[in-house]
């Protein structure tokens, strides 16, 4: 087994997949089921599927699409987007999803993290934290649903959510989203040192070396979007995933 999970992050919109840049300019990259079949063939460790507009548009999760996706996944699946109650969470787990990623609801109501973790276990709850630099270049937690920066420092927020029951943190550098410029390693290092649960680095990955750097900075797992769906300078859509042997060489194996 790989020492660290390497996780494609897929963004869902209207049943299809998109990829954004700095959380904007959504570009259609194909059919969800088709992409998942490719990732099945590549034997990826895990998939993250996020419906990034659900909370922004105040929508419920699209349970039908989630069920269709979960059915196709021959690997564990983490879903995020629009989950705002224990009932939503239960329906998603019943769809065959292993983990739920919370952001908007966790920021508004950390009690929901606790409720879900108590019923399904902390391992089944990930909190997704977006971080964006303000005009002075300071890292701030960003609430993607309303596009606002949050005053509470990252440290206090992460501690609060992990104490509430989050079993994993997906830390995402908004300014690097889709930009293929490497992870924000300082952010990955900071987040990894702040919590004792696994941290998944996200935002900016463009190479195997980037994965290695994020792991060296303390990440337990690495996620990427554009790296797995775009090819070449013109961002032609091509769904790929490194060979397992290459990942083993880069990240090492555990027995």
């Amino acid at each position, binding site marked *: *087994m790989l020492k660290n999970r390497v996780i494609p992050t897929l963004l869902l919109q209207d049943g299809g997949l998109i990829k954004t840049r700095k959380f904007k300019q959504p570009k259609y990259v194909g059919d969800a089921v088709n992409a998942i079949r490719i990732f*099945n063939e590549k*034997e990826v*460790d895990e998939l993250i599927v996020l419906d990034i507009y659900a909370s922004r548009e105040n929508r419920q999760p699209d349970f039908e699409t989630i*069920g269709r996706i*979960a*059915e*196709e*996944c*021959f*690997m*564990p699946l983490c879903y995020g987007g629009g989950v705002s109650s224990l009932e939503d969470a239960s329906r998603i787990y*019943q*769809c*065959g999803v*292993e983990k739920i990623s919370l952001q908007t609801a966790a920021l508004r109501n950390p009690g929901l993290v606790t409720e879900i973790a108590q019923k399904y*276990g*902390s*391992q*089944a709850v990930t909190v997704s934290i977006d971080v964006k630099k303000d005009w002075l270049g300071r890292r701030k937690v960003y609430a993607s649903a309303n596009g606002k920066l949050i005053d509470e420092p990252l440290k206090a927020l992460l501690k609060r959510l992990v104490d509430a029951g989050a*079993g994993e943190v997906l830390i995402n550098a908004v300014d690097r989203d889709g930009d293929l410029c490497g992870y924000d390693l300082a952010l990955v290092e900071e987040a990894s040192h702040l919590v*004792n649960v696994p941290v998944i680095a996200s935002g900016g990955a463009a190479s195997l070396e980037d994965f290695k750097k994020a792991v060296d900075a303390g990440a337990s797992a690495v996620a990427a979007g554009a790296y797995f769906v775009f090819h070449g300078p013109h961002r032609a859509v091509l769904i790929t995933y490194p060979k*397992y042997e290459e990942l083993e060489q880069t990240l090492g194996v555990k*027995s």
Partner: protein
Amino acid sequence: MTSMDNEISVIDYEAANIGSVLRMLEKAGAKPVRASTPAEIAAARRIILPGVGAFDHGMDQLHKRGLVDALNQAALERRIPVMGICLGMQLMCRSSEEGERRGLGWMDASVEKFRFAPDLRLAVPHMGWNTVRLCKENPLLPTLEDRTRFYFVHSFKVRCDHEEDVIAKTHYGEDFVSIFSRGNLFGAQFHPEKSHRFGMQLLSNFLKHTAHA
């Protein structure tokens, strides 16, 4: 194999999401059919009993649908091949520390909670990819291919009374039974349907081994 030879009945009792189980069985070359009534179980040639969630809920769902007698008959009298997955494996045991209900009791085994000292810092449920170690020759996993790994999600583990029923063990803080079998009965604690070609191979081996059962 004829078309009948690869038919496999997957018990549908609202204690598992069977979508990916059906898909993975198709990929493994089987012809999966849903079975949710005693008559469908009586017509089954081989059975997969999937399951997630709490032990009592699983048993209650089987009782509520009147499936227990039909399952007992299939497993103990007709002795057709049955494979339990995750909670399905645990339901095949006598009882579980997780609940009050009696299990199906087909295997001389009980189900216990993972109990770890806090300093081990091991989370429960055990959730993630892990490896298995073969304990004896068996038709499900004759050999371990390179990189063989399976996906686990469980807080409780099976303890077999008879060591000879243990096919494979996995380590998580301690060794626990990840595959058991006795006669026509098989159980896997992990999710073959979420374990890529490794899970597919296991299901395909189950199918081949039981083709002429």
